[in-house]
């Protein structure tokens, strides 16, 4: 890092209420990933305030940040980021492990979420024995395992083909229907339109924030 700082985000002001499903769009360099990292307590803004579930997130030490991430947030990554020497079930139960949940309860819960994403039969498989779509669904189950307030997805369909993308989106929409707040960073228009609200970023500023009519992934797949 040089001495010259680069201002990626230049003034973002927006609120997401519970149960919303928001996509953040923008070309590369627009600051969408940085925004998501700040929202995910992986990074911290130099200025401004971030309130998560009524808690001000500022100057947290590693320990507290880790606890908040565990309690409030579930992450879904473009490259899945599963731990490749652990079975699907162990991957899903990992957030519960860090919560200190006992092993049998943990496995029971993890199994429940695997069932939810339709991978109960694959519980003992290692990630490299699964397809891309299956991996992402395991990652979604993992994100859900700690029962977080918000799901943060960074290009969740970036590494998947269209058909698989729609299947994953269908799953995410289902989760949103159950009341979970979801933020998705994407640069794909069709994916963005499967959410309920699109926030458009350009050069660190919000240029457009509008509610859209949600396209159900199920019907889109049939076109």
């Amino acid at each position, binding site marked *: 890092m040089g001495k010259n700082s680069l201002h990626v985000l230049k003034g973002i002001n927006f609120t997401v209420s519970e149960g919303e499903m928001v996509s953040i769009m923008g070309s590369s360099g627009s600051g969408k990933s940085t925004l998501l990292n700040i929202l995910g307590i992986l990074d911290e803004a130099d200025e401004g305030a971030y309130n998560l579930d009524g808690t001000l997130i500022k100057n947290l030490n590693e320990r507290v940040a880790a606890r908040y991430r565990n309690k409030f947030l579930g992450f879904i*990554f473009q*490259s899945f*980021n599963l731990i490749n020497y*652990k079975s699907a079930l162990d991957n899903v139960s990992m*957030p519960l492990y860090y919560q200190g949940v006992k*092993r049998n309860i943990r496995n029971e819960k993890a199994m429940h979420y695997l069932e939810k994403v339709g991978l109960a039969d694959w519980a003992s498989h290692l990630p490299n024995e699964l397809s891309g779509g299956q991996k992402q669904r395991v990652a979604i189950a993992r994100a859900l395992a700690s029962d977080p307030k918000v799901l943060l997805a960074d290009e969740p369909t970036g590494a998947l083909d269209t058909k698989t993308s729609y299947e994953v989106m269908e799953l995410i929409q289902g989760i949103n229907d159950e009341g979970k707040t979801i933020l998705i960073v994407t640069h794909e228009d069709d994916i963005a339109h499967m959410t309920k609200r699109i926030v458009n970023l350009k050069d660190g500023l919000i240029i457009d924030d509008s509610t859209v009519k949600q396209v159900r992934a199920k019907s889109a797949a049939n076109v």
Partner: protein
Amino acid sequence: MFNIERWQEIFETIRKNKLRTFLTGLSVASGIFILVILLAIGQGMQNGIAKEFENDATNRISVWTGITSVGYKGLNPGRNIEMDNRDYEMAVAKNQDKLELKSGVYSMWGVLTTYGNENGSYRIEGVRGDYQFLENETLTAGRYINQGDLNNFEKVAVLGNRVNLDLFKGKNPIGEYVELTGIKFKVVGVYTDPGGEREETRIFIPLTTAQRVFNAGDKLRSLAFTLGKEDNFEKALAASTAFSEQLEADLKVKHTISPLDERAVNVNNTLEHAKRFYDLDTMIRMFFWGVGICTIIAGVVGVSNIMLIIVKERTKEIGVRKAIGAQPWSIIGMILHESIFVTAIAGFFGLIFSLFLLEIVGPYIEMDFIRNPSVDFSVAITTVIILIVAGAAAGFFPAYRAANIKPIEALRDE
């Protein structure tokens, strides 16, 4: 430590990297192996030295005389100096409260000894009762020479175990009579000596009897003393050195010998002798510790290196773990735990292998100054502690680095 999950994680990562873990472990195992073997050799040397000195009392001071080599007060060199009872009495009178054991000795070499049809040629020594302990002898039957024997010029004999076997062929010798130069002596005891056969082919008789039988008048061949116990080795050494020097000076004055003459009066101080060997042994041992510890450090650096690579390789995984809520200490614990585990297990293998080797081979090693190399319990415990500390040291830097991984950097797709 008792967290099953943590253990499972460690076993999983080790299973994933069998060869790498094995090679790292090998360096630690060989380090411990070398340390233990070196320490055992150090102990073996101590045993060997102890063995060299155990055929006599360890603090024995012996005095014998020879031929003068320097002219003094008008006397030519080449005089034969002989001690007598008065020399002994002088030494005893002067050091009454310091001496513990004391005896004058009159000995004859190659004395024909017969019992029935059996005969042999042995060394006969006329001694006082204390001599048993000065020679570190143990009686296997009967009794030793006592004051009554000395007072009454009794013709009694204590046989070395070898002599007993030669003459009596397993028969009970106590109460039998052996002939020394044709004079009958009653056997009253049999002894063994840790010095072995050479020390057991001797026959002891009362000093007074020996002087009379061999027409020696009041002559003595040698004197033997030990001093009373001191609090520690240093004090004992200082006391015995002072005593030796004083005694030598006194004898030289009494027999008109030049203070510069190094041949006429010989004082052999076992303690001083032993100290030189023990000092050497201590130095060699310290050197061995140094070499051993350096070898272990090489192993530890190896483990540390491997753990750094592991942390580097698992950067992304650690990032993911942190993103889903892993506390920094749990990451540190994971790396430290693995490091200590690998070091400890490898070290135990080295330890057990070396102990096994020592157990099998050790007892057969009987060289002059190395004997039965082995390690004691405290050394084993020390090495185990070294292992745990070494494992923790090896894991510290990698763990520190792992704890500082920022999840956001770890998760960047590059």
